[in-house]
C-alpha cells in the first residue's frame, strides 16, 4: 500500500508541485490571489501554451521546433498587415495560419524527406522567418491595429478572449493526441521510429502532420501576441520557442521521445508562469529571474531522469511481482485523468477570475 502511495505521488509530482507553488505564491505575495493578477497570469500564459503544445507534440515524436518564435513574428506581422489592408478578421486568421503552416511544411520537408536533424532544420528556419519578417516590415513596427486587438485583449462574459481560445485549443489538442490514430502514432514514432514503421504507421505523413499542427498553433499564437502588444512587432517573440520548450519539459515531456502529455504541459507552463509572476510581484531583479528560470529547467529534468532511473533499476529485476499492478492508472484511466486534469486546470483558469473578484 505504501508503495502504491509513493508511485501515485511520483506520477502526480508535477501537479503537486504546481499546487504547492500556488500555495506558496499566495502566502508570500498579498496581490497574488487578486482577480486581476490571476487574470493577468492566465493571459500571459496563452501565447506560451500554444507554442508549448506544438513543441510537446514534436518532442514526443522525436523532433522539435526552434523556429516557433520567429515564425510567430512573421505570421503575426503578415496577419496584422493583411487585416489593416482588408479589415477582415477572417483574412487575418487565414493569413496567419497559412504562413505559419507553410514555414512548418518546409521544416517537415527537411526533417522528414531529407533527414536533416530537426534541430538544424528549424534553426535555419528561425533565421529565415525572422529575416523575412524584418525585410517585409523594413524593421518597423506596425501600429494602430484597430479591432484586431480584440483577439488578444477582448473580453467575452468577463473572460479574456485569448483564454477562451486557448481553453478550446487545449481540448482539441488533447483529443488529437489521445484519441486519433495520428496522435497515438506519434508516441510510437518518438519511442522507436523503425518499430512504428514496421507496425504500419506512415511516419513521413505523421511528421508532416505534427509540423502542420505546430504551424496552426504558432500562427494563432502570432495573432494573439500582436494583439496583446497592440502592434505588429517583427522583432517580437524572440526566444519564445524556449518558453514553449521549457513548459513542455518541466511538464514531463521526455527529450528522448515517446513521452509527454497535454496536462503535464499545462502544469509545466503554469509552474513557470506562476514563478515568473510571483517574482515580478516581489520585485525581484529581472536578471535574477533569468537565473532562477534557467536553474528550474535543469532541476526539473534531472529530477525526472533520476526518479525514472531509480524506478527502472528496481523494475529490471521485478519480473513476476505484480507490484505495479495495484496502481492501475490505465491508458483509459489516464485519458480520464487527462480529461479531468485539463478540465480542472484550464477552464477554471478562465472562470476563476470572476470568482476571485468577489473575494
Amino acid at each position, binding site marked *: 500500500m505504501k508503495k502504491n502511495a509513493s508511485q501515485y505521488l511520483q506520477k502526480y509530482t508535477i501537479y503537486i508541485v504546481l499546487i504547492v507553488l500556488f500555495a506558496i505564491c499566495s502566502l508570500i505575495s498579498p496581490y497574488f490571489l487578486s482577480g486581476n493578477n490571476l487574470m493577468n497570469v492566465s493571459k500571459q500564459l496563452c501565447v506560451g501554451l500554444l507554442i508549448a503544445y506544438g513543441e510537446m507534440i514534436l518532442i514526443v515524436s522525436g523532433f522539435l521546433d526552434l523556429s516557433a518564435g520567429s515564425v510567430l513574428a512573421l505570421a503575426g506581422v503578415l496577419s496584422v498587415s493583411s487585416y489593416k489592408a482588408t479589415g477582415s478578421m477572417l483574412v487575418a486568421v487565414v493569413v496567419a495560419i497559412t504562413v505559419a503552416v507553410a514555414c512548418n511544411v518546409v521544416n517537415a520537408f527537411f526533417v522528414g524527406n531529407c533527414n536533416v536533424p530537426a534541430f538544424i532544420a528549424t534553426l535555419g528556419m528561425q533565421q529565415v522567418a525572422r529575416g523575412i519578417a524584418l525585410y517585409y516590415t523594413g524593421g518597423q513596427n506596425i501600429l494602430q491595429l484597430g479591432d484586431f486587438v480584440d483577439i488578444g485583449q477582448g473580453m467575452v462574459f468577463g473572460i479574456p478572449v485569448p483564454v477562451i481560445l486557448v481553453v478550446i485549443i487545449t481540448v482539441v489538442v488533447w483529443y488529437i493526441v489521445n484519441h486519433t490514430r495520428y496522435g497515438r502514432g506519434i508516441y510510437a514514432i518518438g*519511442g522507436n521510429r523503425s518499430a512504428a514503421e514496421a507496425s504500419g504507421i506512415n511516419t513521413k505523413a505523421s511528421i508532416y502532420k505534427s509540423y502542420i499542427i505546430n504551424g496552426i498553433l504558432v500562427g494563432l499564437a502570432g495573432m494573439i501576441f500582436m494583439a496583446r502588444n497592440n502592434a505588429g512587432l517583427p522583432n517580437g517573440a524572440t526566444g519564445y520557442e524556449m518558453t514553449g520548450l521549457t513548459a513542455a519539459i518541466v511538464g514531463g515531456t521526455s527529450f528522448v521521445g515517446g513521452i509527454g502529455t497535454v496536462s503535464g504541459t499545462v502544469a509545466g507552463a503554469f509552474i513557470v508562469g506562476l514563478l515568473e509572476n510571483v517574482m515580478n510581484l516581489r520585485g525581484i531583479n529581472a536578471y535574477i529571474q533569468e537565473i532562477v528560470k534557467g536553474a528550474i529547467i535543469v532541476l526539473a529534468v534531472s529530477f525526472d531522469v533520476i526518479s525514472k532511473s531509480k524506478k527502472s533499476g528496481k523494475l*529490471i529485476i521485478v519480473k513476476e511481482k505484480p507490484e505495479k499492478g495495484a496502481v492501475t492508472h490505465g491508458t483509459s484511466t489516464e485519458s480520464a485523468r487527462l480529461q479531468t486534469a485539463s478540465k480542472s486546470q484550464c477552464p477554471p483558469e478562465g472562470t476563476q477570475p470572476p470568482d476571485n473578484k468577489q473575494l
Partner: protein
Amino acid sequence: MSDIKMRVSGVEKSFPGVKALSDINFSLRKGTVHALCGENGAGKSTLMKIIMGIYKADKGQIYIDDQPVTIRSPIQAMELGISMIAQELNYVSDLSVEENLFLGRLPVTKLGRVDWKKVRTDAKRFLKEEGLSYAPDQKLKTLTVSDIQMLEITKAITNNAQIIIMDEPTSSITEREVGILFEKIAELKKKGVSIIYISHKMDEVFQIADDITILMDGTVVSTDRAEDLDMDTVISRMVGRKIENVYPKEQVELGEMALEVKGLNKEGIFENINFHARKGEIVGFAGLVGAGRTETMRAIFGLDPYDSGAIYINGREEKIRSPEDSIKKHLVMLSENRREEGIIPPRSVEENASLASLKNFIFGGYAHRKKERNDVKEMFEKMNVKTPSMDTEISKLSGGNQQKVLLTRWMLCDPEVMILDEPTRGIDVGAKFEIYKLMTAMVREKRAVIMVSSELPELLGMCDRIYVMCQGRITGCVERGADFSQETIMRFATGIGEG
C-alpha cells in the same frame, strides 16, 4: 593452492519488493568453462553484475584464489582480473582497433600526452599474439560482430584477465564464427583462464562446458560436471518442470493457398524467389546467415522495395509498398530485431499491443480506449502474456513476454499470413515452448505461418515444409515425412545439394 579460482559464497541480493538472489554458492575452477543456465529473470545477470561490481550484494562473500575480496566497481573487478564480454558489445564504432584496445588505459608520456607510438607497437604485438588479422588503425565499424568479440577478448587478455564472463556470446554470430570462438575458448582454458559462459543454447553449453550451474528464481538448483548431465535434465531443472514434448507440432488439414510469391527479384539481394504457403501450414525458411531470408521477407512485408515479381494473397495479386499495405491485406511480420524494430520501449504493454490495429478501435475519429483495453486484455490471455499491469512499460518485461506482446500486436490484426523472423531468438526455453504452442494455435485457426529460423531443430520440429536459401536463391524445399533432416538442409544451405 586449490584449483578453485573464484568462489561465491552465500550471496544474497534484494531489490525493493523482490528477492533477486538468495544464498548463491558457486565455485569456478581454474582453467575451465563454467556454464550458467537459467531462464530470463533467474538471476544470472544480477549475479554477474555483483561479480563485476555493478551491484553490491546484501550478504555473502566473493573469494578469488581463496582470498576474500570486495568488488565495488567494474574497474576494481578488472584489477582483480575479471572481465566481461557483454551480450550487446560496447564499443565506439568510429574509433580504431588500437584506440578501442586501450580505451580507458591509454599510455601517456611524461607530459601527459597520449603516447601513440607505444599504442601502435603494443596493439600490433597484441593482435599478432592473438592471431588477429586486422590492422590497428582500422575503424571498428568495418569489422564484423565476431571480429569485435575477438577484440574484446584480446582486450580482456591484455588486461591480464583470469576470469572472463561471456554473456550469450553466440547470439549474433555465424556458425563458422562460433567455431572460431570455441577454439579461442579452448586456447584460453589452456592458459589457465576460467570462463563463465552464459547461454540459452543447450548444444553449445554441452559442447564446451566443464561444469554447469543451473539457476532458477534466484537460487542455485544444481552444479554438476557437464558429463553427468543431459540436455533434458538441464532444461527441466531450469524451468522447474518437465517439458514433455519440446515441439508441440500438430497436423492440421491444409486449406487454400494463403500466400504465393512468384519470381521475386531484388538485384544483389535475392533472385527468382518462388514459394507458397497454404492456410494451416507452417512453412520454414532455413539458410545460413546472409542467405537473404530476412531480406526476402522484408520485401514481401513492404519494408524494403523489390525490383520485380508478384505477390498473391488469397489468390489475388497485391501491390505491397509499405507495411501499412500488407497489414491491410492481413499479412504481418514479426521482425527478427525485437529491440530495433519491435518494441516501443517507453510505452505501455497495452499501447505496444494495439499499435498495428488501432483502426479497429477508432470509430468516427475517436479512439475507444475501453474497447482497446478489453480487446488487448483478451488477446493477452490467449497469448499467455504475463505482465504486472496493462500500463507496465514493455521494456520492463522479460524477452519472452515482450515477444508475446509483439505477437499479440500482430494477432490483433487478424492475420491470414504471419511471417515470424527468428521468433525465439534470445528468449528462454519456457517462453520458446509457449511460442511454439502459439504457432500451433495459429495454424489451427487456419492462418498460414512462415517461420524464418537459424535453429534447424526448431524448424524441423515445427514446420510442414522447409525452403532452404543460399546466396539469395531458394536452393531446395524439404517436406515433412520425406527427406526432413538436418543433413539435407545443410547440403542445400551450403549450395552442395543443388542441381
